């Protein structure tokens, strides 16, 4: 058993921490308030290879493992959870399924574009009437000559408004129920594909969260990802991987909130002494720190399972994601509490942290879905 990071993981952590503090933190509040997609951030991170952390070198990526990706997302999310999730989606929800389920031609064609940041990636599962219940999706794809023709609407798509490459799920055979779902690689320029409503979100406000509309959208036949009918499996496996990174995003955000709370508690005085000398404040700090550490270990362990090549790590990924997202909501809430009235203003980052945290209990499967995954894997 070894809890130490490897040399390259330590160096990655240091580099990302530096770039996050110097380049991302100063603009985090502005991005939150404007809601404008942070292309400048993404370009800077792309230059360092952070859009293709887990993509092998031969496809233009950096070839790091999943623990490294978790560390990178954590460091970015400490200062800007918006940028954190944009990077997470590109890596684990767009590049990863193409790497894992794509054929060699698809890997060669799409991965370098995603890893370099030349095109941003997104994944389209959720629909207006299908969230947690993935199999109730209504989007369909039918084969017509050399094209798949897609019809339907996807909703709440992170990176949706700015992406160039989408992994889209649709029914190719409704009768087979979830076994009739297939996955497709869809380019932004596809005829019949357009963007719908941009969501005005409570947190992670600059993630270009957008509706995607497919009206007889023609996708080249070669863009079927994996086999026909394999979509549900691709979707579930990809979500297992991406839950690790949403867990990492939550750990980072929570740590950012704790760091802010500690420094404020040491500076701010009340009743003649610093807040940090009050036991009720200490209790909050202790609770936050312990939950964050536990969350981090769960998330790293899930990443470790993936890196080890374990075929099933749904339970571990869900444990990490569930616990970390709840820890983030709790830590950010407490951080606002410690800041008092000032924490409720936009002069300090903790109100943003608090708003950013809530989504983590919702997307990539709600906390309730995570519990179902965990319980089912224990009870089956």
């Amino acid at each position, binding site marked *: 058993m070894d809890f130490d990071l*490897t*040399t*390259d993981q*330590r*160096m*990655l952590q*240091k*580099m990302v921490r*530096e*770039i996050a503090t110097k380049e991302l933190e100063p603009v985090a509040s502005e991005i939150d308030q404007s809601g404008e997609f942070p292309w400048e951030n993404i370009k800077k991170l792309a*230059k*360092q*290879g*952070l859009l293709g*952390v887990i993509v092998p*070198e031969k496809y233009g990526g*950096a*070839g*790091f493992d999943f623990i490294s990706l978790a560390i990178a997302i954590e460091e970015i999310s400490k200062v800007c959870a918006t940028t954190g999730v944009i990077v997470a989606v590109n890596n684990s929800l767009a590049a990863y399924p193409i790497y894992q389920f794509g054929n060699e031609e698809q890997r060669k064609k799409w991965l370098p574009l995603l890893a370099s940041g030349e095109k941003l990636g997104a994944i389209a599962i959720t629909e207006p009437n299908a969230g947690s219940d993935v199999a109730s999706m209504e989007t369909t794809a039918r084969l017509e000559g050399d094209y798949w023709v897609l019809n339907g609407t996807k909703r709440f798509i992170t990176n949706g408004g700015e992406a160039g490459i989408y992994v889209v799920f649709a029914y190719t055979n409704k009768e087979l129920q979830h076994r009739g779902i297939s996955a497709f690689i869809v380019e932004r320029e596809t005829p019949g594909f357009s963007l719908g409503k941009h969501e005005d979100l409570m947190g992670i406000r600059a993630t270009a969260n957008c509706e995607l509309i497919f009206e007889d959208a023609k996708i080249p036949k070669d863009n079927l990802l994996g086999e026909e009918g394999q979509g549900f499996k691709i979707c579930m496996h990809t979500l297992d991987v991406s839950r690790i990174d949403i867990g990492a995003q939550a750990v980072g955000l929570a740590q950012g909130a704790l760091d802010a709370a500690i420094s404020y508690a040491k500076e701010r005085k009340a009743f003649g002494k610093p807040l940090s000398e009050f036991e009720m404040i200490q209790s909050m700090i202790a609770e936050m720190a312990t939950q964050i550490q536990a969350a981090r270990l769960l998330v790293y362990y899930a990443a470790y399972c993936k890196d080890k090549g374990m075929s099933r790590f749904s339970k571990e990924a869900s444990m990490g994601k569930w616990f970390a997202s709840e820890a983030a909501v709790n830590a950010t809430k407490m951080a606002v509490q410690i800041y008092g009235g000032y924490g409720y203003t936009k002069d300090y980052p903790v109100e943003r942290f608090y708003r950013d945290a809530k989504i983590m209990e919702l997307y990539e499967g709600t906390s309730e879905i995570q519990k179902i995954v965990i319980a089912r894997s224990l009870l089956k």
Partner: protein
Amino acid sequence: MDIVVCIKRVPETAEAEIKVDSSGKDILKERLTFDINESDNYALEEAILLKEKRGGTVTLISVGPPECEDTIRMGLAKGADQAIRVSNEGFGELDGFATAEILKNTIQDLSYDLILTGCMATDDGYSQVGPTLAELLGIPHAVLVTKVDLQDGNARVERELEGGLLEALEIKLPALFAIQTGINEPRYASLIAIRRAAAKEIKVLNAQAIGLERPTLRTRVENLFPPPVGKRAEILKGGAEETSKRLAQIYKSKGII
């Protein structure tokens, strides 16, 4: 153009709470993070830029414990070609002169056209190693360098003087320049370069290997202490125009503007 860059791993103290340890001669470092000394980072970047422009090699040297290898490796990831760590084990306490002596013994066997150091270490603030090393090697040097232009066999450098003046010098190579912060924009290492650098070998030399058993210690720290809290504060009185004028005068006299 073969360039040697001397770097130091220092605790990050700018925003940390600093406490003196029980010996009274050092600070408590357990909770501090360490990084490359700020001006050394600019020296490293300058070396890589010069190499990118004119070819050649960049060799990093650092005197310190095994922990400083992460700092050295980050330099390799940014573009240095090779690295030497001189183990500080057995040397005991080191001052600026002793460090320069160790570096001299290490560098004298290498082929080099240029040596770059930072202009000052942020931990002890001595600014001694660069100039002393140049003297020991018998080569010319310039400190607080803000611009380096290389020509054949010569370098044209600009250095910072008091009062906002710059001095332009022509210096014969090989030479040593102690680089001032702000001369360039230090890069971040890319992930691929980090992965490669993580696996690179760092040559480790000890006292015996460099033929210097006992570097000469010429200074000794007696004690470290936080400055006594001052009682004098000048309150500027009068209208906005008057006080702002006075404030500008104070800033100017302190060299802030």
